[in-house]
Every structure is written in structure tokens, then in C-alpha cells.
């Protein structure tokens, strides 16, 4: 390993780490690769080269090349699995499947450390018991985002409006029957260190977003799923049963 590649401690190290992060993000600069990444990240389970190629309208060989570049950068991870329904001898080689990683990459130039500040603030909210105030602030922030989305596209159906507003806030919504689930937790590391605090904040934010956008067909509820957001937006009709 080259000396300059090795993350060191102290100020110099910080700059090197940031440069490493930039090179990871730079892998996404290629538009084809970016389309492939977006497709893989949006799927719940691993996808094969053939599926990814078909979904992005490129050849399988080209898809394989770019998927492997994404895997080398650590943006997606590789698993091996046999196609469903085939097992035992003669089932063929297991297929290479690609899926999103839980690792996160953040780039700021010049370097900033908002994560440390967020952790300190979360600590203080915990100790002082200011959770109700945090939830109020989150609800009104969500409501502002919801209102803005509604004003921007007053005629958009609820479904599309909510999906767009959620994506703009860093969530990755997907349909699960009548419900909307969220593949990404925008506050993942903080939610890990302060679960009730951050999940409660998240719920309030999403409740606010729905009410600000005047969407009554969905209601937010805590329902944590492995590797996903702790909130589900439930079909209000189902809920009323």
C-alpha cells in the first residue's frame, strides 16, 4: 500500500480520508454506472447482471463491467445464489448477485464533521429530556417539506407526490401492497446510537410531511424492519379496519 493511500491520524489523515471518499463517489460519475447503481439500490434483494442489463437497457457484458467497478468501490456488494427452484448437481453455477451496501459515504469539501455535532446534540436532547421539542421541530420541518411539494405540483396524485417528497428528503420509498415502506434511513448512524430519540424524530418528520402535503390516504407508524427505515406509511383504509 502506498504511503499516501493509508489513512493516517491527525489533520493530514482527515484530508486523505476525504480524498478516498471522493474517489468512491467519483465512480458514480459515469452516467451508465449511475443508472445501474440507482437500479440496484432501489431493489430489495440482489439482482443479477442480466436483470440489471435489461432494466437499464444496456448489454449484459457492459452491465457486468460496471457492476464490478461499483463492487470494487464498495458501493454495492456481491453475493452468490442459485436461481430460485434450482438446486443440487446440474443446477449450474451460482449467479453473481449485486445489492446495495449499508456502508455510507459522505463528501464535504472542505472537510466538515456534522456527524460529531449531531451526536453531541442527540446526547444533550437525551439527557435533558427535550424529545417532545425535537418531535415538534421535526413535525414542522416535515410539514414545510410536504406543503412545498404540494404547492409545486397541486394536481399530482398523492402516490407520486409522496414518493417525490420522500426521495427529496433522502428516503427510498417502495410499495408494499397498499403501504409505502422506506428502504433507506437518512439518519442511519444516529438512529443506531440513539434509537428511540431518532426514530421518534423520524416518525414526527414523516407525520408532518403527510399532513403538510394534505395526504390522508397514508398514515405513519413505527414498524422497524431489518436494514430499513423504522417507519411505515400505512394505507389508512386498511388501518381503519
Amino acid at each position, binding site marked *: 500500500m502506498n504511503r499516501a493511500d493509508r489513512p493516517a491520524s491527525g489533520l493530514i489523515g482527515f484530508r486523505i480520508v476525504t480524498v478516498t471518499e471522493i474517489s468512491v463517489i467519483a465512480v458514480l460519475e459515469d452516467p451508465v454506472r449511475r443508472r445501474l447503481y440507482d437500479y440496484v439500490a432501489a431493489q430489495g434483494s440482489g439482482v443479477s447482471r442480466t436483470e440489471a442489463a435489461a432494466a437499464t437497457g444496456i448489454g449484459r457484458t457492459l452491465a457486468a463491467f460496471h457492476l464490478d467497478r461499483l463492487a470494487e468501490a464498495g458501493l454495492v456488494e456481491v453475493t452468490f445464489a442459485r436461481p430460485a427452484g434450482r438446486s443440487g448437481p446440474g443446477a449450474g453455477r451460482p449467479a453473481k448477485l449485486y445489492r446495495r451496501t449499508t456502508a455510507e459515504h459522505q463528501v464535504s469539501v472542505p472537510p466538515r464533521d456534522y456527524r460529531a455535532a449531531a451526536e453531541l446534540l442527540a446526547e444533550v436532547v*437525551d*439527557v*435533558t*429530556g427535550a*424529545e*417532545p421539542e425535537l418531535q415538534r421541530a421535526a413535525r414542522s420541518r416535515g410539514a414545510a417539506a410536504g406543503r412545498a411539494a404540494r404547492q409545486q405540483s397541486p394536481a399530482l396524485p398523492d402516490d407520486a407526490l409522496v414518493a417525490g417528497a420522500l426521495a427529496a428528503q433522502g428516503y427510498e420509498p417502495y410499495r408494499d401492497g397498499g403501504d409505502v415502506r422506506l428502504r433507506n434511513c437518512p439518519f442511519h448512524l444516529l438512529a443506531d*446510537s440513539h*434509537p*428511540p430519540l431518532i*426514530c*421518534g424524530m423520524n*416518525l414526527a418528520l414523516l407525520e408532518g410531511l403527510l399532513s403538510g402535503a394534505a395526504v390522508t390516504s397514508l398514515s405513519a*407508524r*413505527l*414498524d*422497524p424492519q*431489518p436494514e430499513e427505515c*423504522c417507519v411505515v406509511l400505512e394505507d389508512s383504509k386498511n388501518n381503519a379496519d
Partner: protein
Amino acid sequence: MTGYHLAELNIGTARAATDSPEMAGFMAGIAGVNALADTAPGFVWRLQDGDGPGATALRPCGPDVMVNMSVWEDLGSLRDFVYRNGPHLDFMRRRRSWFHPMAVPYLVLWWVPAGHIPGLDEALSRLDLVRRDGPGPRAFTFRDPCPPPVPAAQAAR
């Protein structure tokens, strides 16, 4: 598997008496949350006073301080129940409307030999320990967990 189970104690200073309107949501929900714990994977035991719901009638730390204590097979099963069970997480989200915040640790975890049911005095001494010395192998928190003791250390207990 390790020969050890994980014991947990948490305490909270109630904002009002258990029969007050302020505490009505807590008192109404606690039985349901306890029932969820009883059927959660890895659950072993929880403290009950045989009087109110759960252990809500016990007051070993003062008239307003409620205690909750349980034993689980491992850290993962307790963590999954506390933070990844929807109704329990929702209950925790609302805790500040029922309990005062505390600037010192109000939760302690420690390993017990499988089959041992800790008493309240044992639990409270572990809470004292984590408050006095910070997290360590004999008393720790979710934030700074410690692995179960290696079997050789069992004789030293």
C-alpha cells in the same frame, strides 16, 4: 450457548402517580408491551410484583422511581426487542411524557450464569457500579456492550 444470560435493569422517575391522568397512557400500555416481551425471541424472565401490571408497584429506589428488570438469552435478542419491536419502540418514543430525564445512567446490563435469576439488590448494585465506574465487564450499557465472561472466569464469581 455461552452459559451466560443477559440481565437488564432500568429505572425511571415517574412524572406523576400511577393512577393520575398523566400516567394513564403508560399504565394502559405496559401490560401489552410486557406480553410482547414474554413471547419475544430470547426472552427468559422478567420481574413481576404480583400486584400491579408488571413491576409497577415496586419502589425500591424511592416513592416515584419505577423499576423494570428482565433476563434475556443474549444481547442481540434484548436489543431487537427494545429497539426493533414496533410497539415497544413506540412506547419508548413516548417515555418523556411519563418519566423525567436523568443525567446519570438509568439502565444497566450484566451477564448472569444461565438459570440464575437476579434479585433487586444485585441489580441495583450493578446500576451503582455503572454510575460510579462507567461501563465495564461487570456492568455496562447498550452503547458500550461487553461480551459474556469466558467459562474459566466462572469459578471466580
